[in-house]
């Protein structure tokens, strides 16, 4: 009991500390600064894009990992989930070594299509997707694995092809997990710092997302940093509340 209370206190204390340092009267002023808005807007756009990418590319991958009969599945899964345990900065360096202008892929993209990922918003999306997609994949894969495949067999016996079965039976049945996975991935993308600053840099309005702005503002304007942190805190709370059925209400 005592240990549990201590643990809860451990999680609550920093939040209280943060809230207690907020200059509430100046909060709206801090948040209405164009820099704060730029960072918030960029954060929302990039994290939403990264989430869409995670859903589009992560769903087939999750299906393959859960149901596919492919060799070396365990290895593939470990590779895909690696960004979850990798320090994000390392992820950023890894992305740089693959997609910077001097790397073969990055160089080719730039020479052929004139696409530069580093120092671009696309780079932010990429860094965020790299770090956030595993959360989506692992959630959806678990749901697919846990789903009774006899429902899909029943659908097939009714004349539905594989795509129809997936679209009309599999997907709706794992829909809660798809939503949960997407929310988790989005929250992770929103808070992404290390991979973003390493790979995409820290350019105002283009790659300076909310967490980067918080870090930079700590130097110049602590109240600004705290105000931005409050925004992130509110967003995290909204995420948790929307997931309460999964975590908070678990008995």
């Amino acid at each position, binding site marked *: 009991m005592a*240990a*549990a209370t201590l643990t809860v206190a451990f999680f609550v204390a920093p939040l209280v500390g943060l809230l207690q340092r907020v200059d509430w009267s100046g909060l709206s002023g801090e948040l209405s600064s164009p820099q704060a808005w730029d960072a918030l807007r960029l954060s929302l756009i990039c994290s939403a894009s990264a989430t869409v990418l995670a859903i589009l590319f992560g769903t087939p991958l999750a299906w393959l990992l859960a149901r596919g009969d492919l060799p070396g599945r365990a290895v593939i899964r470990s590779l895909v989930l690696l960004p979850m345990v990798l320090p994000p900065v390392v992820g950023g*360096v890894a992305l*740089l070594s693959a997609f*910077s*202008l*001097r790397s073969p892929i*990055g160089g080719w993209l730039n020479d052929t299509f004139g696409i*530069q990922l*580093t*120092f671009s918003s696309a780079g932010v999306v990429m860094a965020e997707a790299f770090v956030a997609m595993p959360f989506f994949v692992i959630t959806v894969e678990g749901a697919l694995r846990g789903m009774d495949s006899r429902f899909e067999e029943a659908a097939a016996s009714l004349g539905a092809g594989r795509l129809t079965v997936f679209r009309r039976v599999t997907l709706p049945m794992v829909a809660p997990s798809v939503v949960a996975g997407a929310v988790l991935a989005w929250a992770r993308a929103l808070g992404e710092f290390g991979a973003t*600053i*390493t*790979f995409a*840099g*820290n*350019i*105002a*309005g*283009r*790659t*300076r997302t909310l967490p980067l702005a918080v*870090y*930079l503002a*700590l*130097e*110049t304007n*602590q109240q600004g940093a705290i105000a931005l942190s409050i925004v992130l805190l509110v967003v995290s709370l909204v995420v948790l509340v929307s997931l309460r059925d999964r975590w908070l209400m678990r008995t």
Partner: protein
Amino acid sequence: MRTKQTLIRWTLVTVAALTMLVGCSDSADKTSGSDDAARATPRSELKGTVVVSAATSLTEVFTEIADQFTAANPDVDVEFNFDSSSTLATQIIEGAPADVYASADEANMTKLTDAGVIAGKPAIFAENELVIVTKPGNPSGIDNLSDLATAGVISLCGEEVPCGRYAAQILEKAGVAISEANVTRGQNVGATLAAVTEGDAAAAIVYVTDARSAGDQVEAVPVPAEVNVTATYPIGVLESSEASDVAEAFMAHVLSDEGQAVLSRYGFLLPR
């Protein structure tokens, strides 16, 4: 029931592990203490650990100076916390434990003296100048400051970080404006340099000493003397230091001929 037992077991394991760690460090201290008694080096009676919070641009040179210092004082340990001078200043004002603060500018030192956390008077121990660095071979063809406005993404230190403020002064004196949309801000001079060495930034403005230590990873393009600024590096001992004798000795060593020789070897200018 089961999870509760597991939890208790883990807690016990953790506590035991922590106890062992503490025990180990205790015994380590004792060993070094008896070593001290046995050897009884005549040159120094200093002992203890000092934490030195120093600007990133001092990373290599301070590490070498500390090696000298600990060689002369075997019972002394020097620990470093390298980051931008402004980050370190913020941390110290927030109460981060440190004994010595070495800044890359006077503004941040002033912040600390104004806050009353510096004991005595800080001293200037080195000076530095700034330089443009590009990728090896200078692929973007940057010959002067005005080329930076059109060269693509330029890496500069954060605006409150000393190297960022110096860069801003230089650009202003030279009448060059770089759109903020083309500036990526490094949190300290190391990160700013890394955007060129590791990333795709076309150029950065960093200290001469950093350009030098980066070796052939970068190519240096000098900043004309008439617009260049001189960074002055002050050092001071903190009021809150619990090993102020060691801290003062370290500061004295940095200012000594021996320390100054190392600084000079790394390309720092010596204070006039």
